[in-house]
Every structure is written in structure tokens, then in C-alpha cells.
């Protein structure tokens, strides 16, 4: 019980510096964990978010823009493609399913997308998971002129809309209250959460977008993109050859996950900067342990000398100081986990609100124990310098007075 007692009493005696130092470690640990987990989880979540589709066909342009527009409902469409292009790709033997998508309007900032009922009826947005609406609702029907809408769970919650409510769309992808269309749509269903970008979208029949008042009548049959499910993975390379290499009018974005991974590759430097900052914060925190204990050594000299006079070995004193530093690190690391969960919940909330992609707060990753243990080890190392000072405390000189 000797060592725990010495550590406990020392922590109590220097309670303020213990709390402040542990707090800085908690922030460092929480920040490191948050950076790491958001980075790895968002990379995984974004690259795995395909909403059930293997490829996207769109106007000639950037594949990334096409995927962001059609899958993540973030970017503007690179352009339109003709209905005939949709018909052609739909009939291709390698294509299992093709769903047209038309965008260009919003409902108070939430994107309105026109599509066919097949999206909800035939597509699995994740393996084994089909779309479903909350009780009392339904999907919009096949009638092309129906002014019906199905709203994603997140959009419904944020907009405060329910089955039976009506709305008038706003023109463009960005909300501008002056640009409101005349058409009135009625919500017939609220999608159950899919934890994908689909949750942020207000879905209406394809014709609804194409023939919306104020839209170009010449483009009344055009669409923004075609979401494609392939029969086999090799079919994607065949279509890639056909559209991207031999053709020069359309772009096929395939495979969807790899294109998003490319995006993460391009912003890898940003990850590295964040990680570097987190490492530096951790180093500063360990330094604060060193400074905190080192600065208190003058006040502890007498206690250490008394302990030595009572028979404590130098290595006991050395071990007590290092263990105390490790304890401060452990306290900080434990609090750091709480900081991490708080930060992560906030960041995940922002990411969900902005993209519809859901990060899992309960996800397990080795970094969740490696980082806290690393912080404890780093703090113990930070305790070595004051421990050496403690180790060298001259007993006789410190135990004045002499006679």
C-alpha cells in the first residue's frame, strides 16, 4: 500500500495542478481520438455509402461531382442527359437496374429529387435493406403527374413535416425564398431512417421536377443522372470502356466507393495536418505533466527526504514520481474518453446534418485503447525528469536543521 498511498497523498496535496494537468491530457486524448475516429469512420462510411448503386451515369464531366450529386446529394449536377441515354443504359444486358434522377429544386435547403417509384420498390439501399415508410404513409405512385412526395427521415424531422403536409418547392439547389414554384406537393410518406444521404432528400415523381413551372420546357424529358446497379462487377469496366474511353458525351462514375476514396486521397494532407496537430497537443500535454510535477519538486523535497530518512530507497522515490505522472495520465485519459464521446457526437451530428452520412458513436477501434494507454505511457515518460530530480534529493541537506 506504500506506493499507492504516496501517490494518492501527493495527488491530493497538489490537487489543483493535478486537475489542470489531467484536464489538458483529457483534451489532448479526446482530440486525438476524435480526429482519428472521425477520419477512419468517415472514410469508411463515405466509401461504403453507395445507397445500393454500383455506378452513376451523367453528363460529361467530373466523376466525383457526379457521385457527390447523385449519391450524396451535395454538389450541383454536371449537366443533363437525354431520356434516350437512360433508355439505352437501362436496356444494356450488363445493367440490372437503372433509376433516373432529376434535381434542381429544394425545400428550404433540403434537396428535392425527382425519380421513379422503382427506387423504393426494387432497390436495396444496403445489403438486405429496402426502403420503408413510417406508419400511415406510402410511396408515391406511378402516376407521373401526381403531386406527391416522400420525405427522408432527417429532412422530415428538421423541416417538421409529416404525412398530409403540403409544400411548394423552391427553385435551385440553394434556398432562396423569392424563387418559389407554384406547384403544391403533398407528403404521402416519411421514409424510415436509412442512415444514408437519402434521409436528407425530399423525393417527388420524376415528372414533377422535369415539368416544374419555370424549368426549361425544352429539357422537360432530360434527367440529371442515372443510378445503375450492375449484374456483375466486370460489367462496370465494360461500361467504363464504352462511356468514358470510347465515348465523349457522357461520364460513367464507377466504382462509386473508389471515386470517393480518391477524394479522401486528395485531402489526405489535411488528415495528416490534423493528426500532426493532435500529436503535438499530446506532446504538449505530456510536457505539462513534466512541468507540473517538476515545478512542485521544491515543495516536495522535504517530504521526499523524510521518506528517504525513513528507509525509502531511491528507486522507490523514483518509481513513486513516475507512477504519479502515469496516474495523472490515466486520470486524463479516462476523462479524455468522455471528451472524445462528446466531441465525436458533435462532429457526427454536423456530418449527418451536412451529408446524411451517419458515423457510429459506439464503433470499436483499437485506437480507443491504444491512445489512452499511449497517453499514460507518454505521461510516465514525462515524469522521468522530475523523478530523476527526486531521485537526487540530498537527504541530509534537506533535513535541516543540523546541530
Amino acid at each position, binding site marked *: *500500500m506504500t506506493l499507492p498511498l504516496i501517490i494518492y497523498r501527493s495527488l491530493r496535496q497538489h490537487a489543483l495542478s493535478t486537475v489542470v494537468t489531467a484536464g489538458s491530457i483529457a483534451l489532448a486524448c479526446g482530440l486525438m481520438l476524435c480526429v482519428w475516429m472521425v477520419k477512419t469512420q468517415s472514410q469508411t462510411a463515405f466509401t461504403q455509402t453507395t445507397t445500393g448503386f454500383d455506378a452513376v451515369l451523367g453528363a460529361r464531366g467530373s466523376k466525383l461531382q457526379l457521385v457527390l450529386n447523385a449519391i450524396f446529394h451535395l454538389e450541383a449536377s454536371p449537366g443533363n442527359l437525354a431520356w434516350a441515354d437512360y433508355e439505352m443504359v437501362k436496356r444494356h444486358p450488363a445493367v440490372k437496374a437503372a433509376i433516373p434522377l432529376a434535381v434542381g429544386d429544394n425545400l428550404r435547403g433540403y434537396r428535392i429529387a425527382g425519380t421513379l417509384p422503382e427506387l423504393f420498390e426494387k432497390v436495396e439501399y444496403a445489403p438486405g435493406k429496402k426502403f420503408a415508410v413510417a406508419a400511415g404513409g406510402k410511396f408515391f405512385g406511378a402516376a407521373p403527374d401526381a403531386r406527391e412526395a416522400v420525405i427522408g427521415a432527417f429532412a422530415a424531422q428538421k423541416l417538421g413535416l409529416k404525412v398530409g403536409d403540403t409544400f411548394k418547392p423552391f427553385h435551385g439547389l440553394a434556398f432562396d425564398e423569392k424563387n418559389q414554384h407554384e406547384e403544391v406537393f403533398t407528403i404521402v410518406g416519411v421514409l424510415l431512417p436509412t442512415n444514408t444521404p437519402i434521409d436528407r432528400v425530399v423525393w417527388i415523381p420524376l415528372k414533377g421536377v422535369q415539368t416544374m413551372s419555370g424549368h426549361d420546357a425544352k429539357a422537360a424529358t432530360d434527367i440529371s443522372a442515372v443510378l445503375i446497379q450492375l449484374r456483375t462487377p466486370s460489367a462496370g469496366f465494360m461500361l467504363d470502356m464504352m462511356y468514358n474511353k470510347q465515348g465523349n458525351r457522357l461520364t460513367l462514375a464507377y466504382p462509386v466507393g473508389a471515386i470517393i476514396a480518391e477524394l479522401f486521397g486528395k485531402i489526405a494532407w489535411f488528415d495528416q495536418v490534423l493528426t500532426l496537430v493532435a500529436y503535438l497537443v499530446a506532446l504538449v500535454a505530456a510536457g505539462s505533466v513534466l512541468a507540473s510535477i517538476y515545478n512542485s519538486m521544491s515543495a516536495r523535497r522535504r517530504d521526499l527526504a523524510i521518506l528517504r530518512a525513513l528507509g525509502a530507497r531511491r528507486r522507490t522515490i523514483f518509481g513513486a514520481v513516475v507512477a504519479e505522472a502515469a496516474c495523472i495520465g490515466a486520470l486524463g485519459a479516462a476523462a479524455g474518453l468522455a471528451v472524445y464521446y462528446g466531441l465525436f457526437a458533435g462532429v457526427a451530428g454536423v456530418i449527418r446534418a451536412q451529408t446524411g452520412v451517419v458515423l457510429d458513436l459506439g464503433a470499436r477501434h483499437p485506437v480507443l485503447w491504444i491512445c489512452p494507454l499511449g497517453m499514460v505511457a507518454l505521461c510516465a515518460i514525462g515524469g522521468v525528469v522530475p523523478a530523476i530530480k527526486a531521485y537526487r534529493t540530498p537527504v541530509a541537506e534537506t533535513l535541516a536543521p543540523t546541530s
Partner: protein
Amino acid sequence: MLAVTQLQKSFVSPEGTRVEIVKVESFALAVGAQLALRGESGSGKTTFLHLIAGILAADGGQVVIDGAEMTALGEAGRDRLRAEKIGYIFQTFNLLQGYTVLENVVLGMSFGPRGADRKHAKEMLERVGLGHRLDHFPAQLSTGQQQRVAVARALANRPKLVLADEPTGNLDHKHSREALALIREVCRENGAALLLVSHDEEVLRQFELRRDFADINGALKEAGK
């Protein structure tokens, strides 16, 4: 119990010259004996006790305690021997201010061979009349009570040798007499030898065995010449 031969210790003065502080040709203390050493401030008494306790390393000579040669040991060995055989009562008590009374005594025991024994520590504190103050901190005690804690801590490990350095120097006459009686009584109970240094004649008079430190410390004689 204690045998000191040709013990030497010197320090380098701020002027850079080497000053001999302790030079004891021969000194001994029998098992259970209680001896008072008379010495003025600055005479090297504390240095002598530190050398016996192994807190300071000697320049030369021998200190043998209960058959173990302190001066032949390295620092870790001296620490171990001190924890096993010696109880040290300091003039300023040297209690650990951040620890309770009980913890002070338990911690004093924990480095010795018997280890931390809370039950025995409590008994010792009851023996010195502080059974009701176990959870108090030193600052919450009177000076006399603090001295009694120091006595309990020094004797809790049942040391063979108790070194007391001006143990009553901070006490008034009444408390001084009481503390001294307590130290001697507990040493007798435990069969421990007691070597006490003091410059206080009243304290010294209470000992049957008394010696002048000046008579045994050759360094003082040479300085006098």
C-alpha cells in the same frame, strides 16, 4: 549493538577548503543502553547521527549496527539497514504534513522488514496517547502531540537502535520531560538502545549514561588546538 571505529567525515567549505566535521576513534553502545551525548550547536552531532543512520556516507571508518556494517554498504543497502534496524527521532519531528497521523506511522513502518501494519501502528499511537487523533493531520496537532507521533513512528518498527536528535528542542519544559520519559519508556519496552544528542542540561541530567560529544569527536579537539 552499536560500534563505531575511526569514523571520519569532512565537507568542502564555501571557501573551497576541506573541513573535518566528525572524527570518532571509537564509540560503542550496548544492547538496550540509553546514552545522552552532550554537544553544542554546530559540533557535528547531527552529522554523527546521520553517519550512524547511513543517511550520509562516511569518508572512512566503520559503523556496525547489530552485526551489520553500515559503512560497507552502498546507498540502497544503507537505506535497507536503516529501515530495518534504526528508528530516528528528529528535532523538527519531520512529519509528513500531507499524511494523517496514522499514515505517518504506517508509512514509517512500510519500508522496514515487517511492512505496513496498521494494527500495530494504531497500538503505537494509542501507546503515546494519540489513539483518538489517528485521522488528524500534523498541522492539527499541538507541538507536543506532533513529537509523540514522531516517537510512535520511530519506534513502531521495533528498531534495535533509536537515534534522537534534540528530540525535545522544540518543546517547553513540561512537554520536554513528558516526551523524554515516553521515548525512554518505549525504548525500554522494546529493548531498543537509545542514543540521544542534546545541548539541554535538564534533558541530559535525566540520563545515567552521559558523554560529551567533544570528548569523542577528534575533529573538535583538533579544531580547538
